[in-house]
């Protein structure tokens, strides 16, 4: 797991808690949760927060840390991600990219906002990364939420074995299903994987009568062409029982996250989704008889 967000209001109906599970088989260039890409828990360092006290240097068993005038720096080769520096730093200059959790420890956090779910009919959303990467853990969490009577949503790229997906669907009330591009070649280019299984999985879920909202992360110059929007609209409108799409306009807010992780930002060059383009996309999708919301 890499994060829990309470009072999540854009990941499904009403007031929710979103649980982010680590690890993703895709590598979308616009990914806004890069800390969720790798399944491993690593240490990241933010030298600008360092006050130079040297506590972490003294605690590091691998001698991988030094403090300079620019703050602390970490030798990632020598570092074994043991996290001693994370626990000792008073300035929070070292962080873990996630934490190992049990079903019970996640549920403890989920239960904290029970009065809000009760009042509003909200619940829990599992997101990522790709939550279907940890199907056994995910299913257990969904089942535990089900026992509490909570509304459960799964936010997925749909890139998983169909048996895995259908198994998880048994304990899911709503899928937030990302559909990135209809053209397989383009899909491969920007996400690293084929869309063949994804399209098949959407169709299978729709056929099984599962509640689903299809979400289009709108990437200017990549998937906001009229051709792709027409194809997307037609495909989604053809799914039995699916009537709603969410358009999620691209923003570059995640750029600082990449810097923190020491990664290069792959989405460089994608312009911000302008309102005019977003409205244009919404109009095209609406023409297919879909109810379309911006922002989800």
């Amino acid at each position, binding site marked *: 797991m890499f994060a829990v*967000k*309470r*009072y*999540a*209001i*854009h*990941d499904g109906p*009403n*007031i929710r808690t*979103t649980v982010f599970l680590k690890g993703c088989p895709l590598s979308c260039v616009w990914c806004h949760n890069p800390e969720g890409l790798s399944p491993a828990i690593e240490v990241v360092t933010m030298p600008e927060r360092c*006050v130079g*006290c040297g*506590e972490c240097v003294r605690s590091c068993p691998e001698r991988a840390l030094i403090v300079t005038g620019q703050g602390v720096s970490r030798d990632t080769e020598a570092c074994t991600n043991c996290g001693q520096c994370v626990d000792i730093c*008073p*300035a*929070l200059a070292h962080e873990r990219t996630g934490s190992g959790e049990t079903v019970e420890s996640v549920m403890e956090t989920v239960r*904290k*906002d029970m*009065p*809000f779910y*009760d*009042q*509003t009919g*909200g619940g829990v959303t599992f997101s990522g990364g790709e939550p279907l990467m940890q199907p056994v853990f995910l299913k257990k969490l969904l089942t535990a939420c089900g026992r509490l009577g909570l509304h459960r949503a799964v936010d997925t790229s749909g890139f998983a074995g169909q048996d895995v997906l259908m198994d998880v669907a048994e304990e899911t009330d709503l899928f937030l299903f990302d559909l990135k591009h209809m053209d397989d070649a383009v899909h491969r280019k920007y996400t690293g994987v084929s869309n063949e299984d994804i399209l098949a999985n959407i169709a299978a879920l729709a056929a099984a009568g599962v509640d689903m909202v299809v979400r289009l992360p709108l990437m200017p110059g990549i998937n906001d062409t009229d051709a792709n929007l027409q194809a997307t609209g037609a495909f989604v409108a053809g799914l039995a029982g699916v009537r709603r799409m969410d358009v999620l306009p691209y923003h570059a807010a995640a750029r600082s996250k990449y810097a923190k992780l020491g990664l290069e930002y792959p989405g460089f060059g994608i312009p911000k989704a302008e309102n005019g383009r977003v409205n244009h996309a919404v109009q095209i999708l609406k023409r297919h008889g879909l109810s379309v919301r911006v*922002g989800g």
Partner: protein
Amino acid sequence: MNERIGRLKRESFEAVPSISIERAVIETEFYRENYGKYSLPVLRARFFHELCAKKTLYIGKDELIVGERGPRPKAVPTFPELTCHTAEDLRILNSRTMTRYHVTGEDIKTYEETVIPYWQGRSMRDRVFNHVPEDWKAAYECGLFTEFMEQRAPGHTALDGLIYETGMLDFKMRIAKRLEGLDYLNDPQASDKAEQLKAMDIACNAVMLFAVRHAELADRMADEIDDPVRQAELRRIADVCRRVPAHKPRDFWEALQMYWFVHLGTITELNGWDAMSPGHLDQHLGPFYEQGIADGVLTRDAAKELLSCFWIKVNNHPAPPKVGVTAKESGTYNDFTQINIGGLKRDGSDGSNEVSYLILEVVDDLHLLQPQPSVHVSERTPERLLKVASRVIRCGYGYPSVFNTDMVVMEQVRAGKSVEDAREGGTSGCIETGSFGKEAYVLTGYLNVPKVLEVTLNNGVDPLTGREVGLKTGDPTIFKTYGELYDAFVRQLEYVVDLKVRVNNYIERMYAKHSPAPFLSVVIRDCIDKGRDYYDGGPRYNTNYIQCCGIGTVTDSLSALKTHVFGGGLDMAELLAALKNNFEEAEALRLLLWNRTPFFGNDDDRADDIMKKVYDSLFRAIDGRLNTKGSLYHLNMLSTTCHVYFGKMLGATPNGRKAHLPESDGTSPSHGADRNGPTAVVKSLSKMDQAKSGGTLLNQRFLPSVLSSDRDLDKLCGLVRTYFTLGGHHIQFNVVDTETLRKAQETPDEYRNLLVRVAGYSDYFVDLDKDHQEEIISRTEQELG
């Protein structure tokens, strides 16, 4: 907003606050001539009558609701019998950059020659400060508490529906009957009561005279004008002023003018805190509105226009200028008139009606500084009202604030009021609970709870001045357990509360004896029946509140001591040295305290349990103490803007807060300490047993993007409703981003009308001093995914 309202709004917004010395001059002359001739209640009433007979009147050219306290909009009289400003005070008021009041040199000269020589040494403020004991002064001067009554009269009340069914002539009949029934043989207080009742009778005459003078002025203006439309309006104004307040109102217009004359009377007689409030205005006006519509003599637009005129009237009345500590802790033009929307009726049914929605439209159209609306939400309140209110909240004026009616009722029932009187109550000022029309619920001053801890950590000494200001509770470096430290804190707390109450009780009697309020006593229930003044236990209920500041700061500081000193490896002496040096050369220690301590506001029981304990200690120290009216003190958790002043008087604290920065506000978490979003804040707050207080205050700051769609508003309403089901009293929102606030600091002229929520009220951001501006910017921005 029609053209008339547009013009009136612009005039009101642009009017420059100024000082009018007219009241002071009339009063001084009157006192020189008459002091000693009458009993004090009668003297006060006769002076009030003199003022109503002589004061300059004002009827603006577009106005429908008429009457000003001063000779023109935003002209504020002084009250030398309470605080006699020096010539130097007046010059400062005229020249300071913030909350400036224009005063002419000529007026200052007159003041110096006639007003000051008479009142110096006689004003309430002088008499209080000449009396108070040294230990009180030491504690007061180091910022352990403030004193509300040292320069403004206790007001702290709102009206119920009484004045809409009772004219001044009816009140006079009641007074006469009561006078007749006095038993001079067996009631030793009968003659005191007689003086009080005579004074009330004179006060009724005074207000009727004031209204008739307006009627005459309106007629004269009508005689002189050619425009037939305005002529008809002026004739109508004259008719209305001849009808109310002598008689009870018959229609919507008369009802508003009735309230306005009563409002003006109470804020002219004295300058009680929080001005005056109409209470549940929508409930009071609802029947007049419905009748007018049914009879075909009122339209929705006409009602809205009248309401807007009324709104602007209130905005024309800035707070009287403050001096000294009170100016530091309450630097605002806002005089805190609050209007309750929704809530419950006396019989427990939903109180909202069409006027509730009209009021929300008016505040959205006008978005002026005063008066400020609050929405009162009960289990029975339709969701629609909260939803419409949330659309106004989204605009970012900082209002309406939102209150939990069911909790407000519960607080009052706990304090011994009948459930019906509690339902007719609500909140006024910022968040203060009271039974409208029946209660003096007097704020006595703020208590600096983190300062109590600081003094405890320094064995009775204020570390900023080295002065002994508190009890010697022991050297903290030899405390072996957290329990020992906490016990010392509680003893210190009780000592400070003792000091405060002792002096409060003295001041209370000063008001009862020297500065009775006969007119206010007419309109608050039971004063006539008891033959006693508002300040002397006349009202049905008489509550004193002490407002406790900084629960977030003190909780986090105790949590840090518990975690790192008593439960970790940090040496108390090392910590105390770092606090004394304001964490110079100890940034790592400061960050350890700031980042590695369980803090209030995160739904973390380790911190929240400490908050509960502190809250309970405050409750035990304050609740149930006797005031001088045979009634009790209760706890209140309001800070208004005092947390900024108190923070200035406070050194570095164990939670990693640096010296002189603001404390946490109201019952909100420390700035930046809440790191788990608004649901965690709400959960933490819900662990406080708020029913045992007279009000709590929770500030939340949201980015505008979080409330962009109507679905977002539903979620905001869900957050509010959940907080209320968990026992919350109040929540309010600032919807503004940091970038906008920074721009407003750079180019204030372009942001003159940017309203932000400060405490239990909104203020113009550019009218706040730098400390308050920074305080608002530092409030945690809740950005939601």
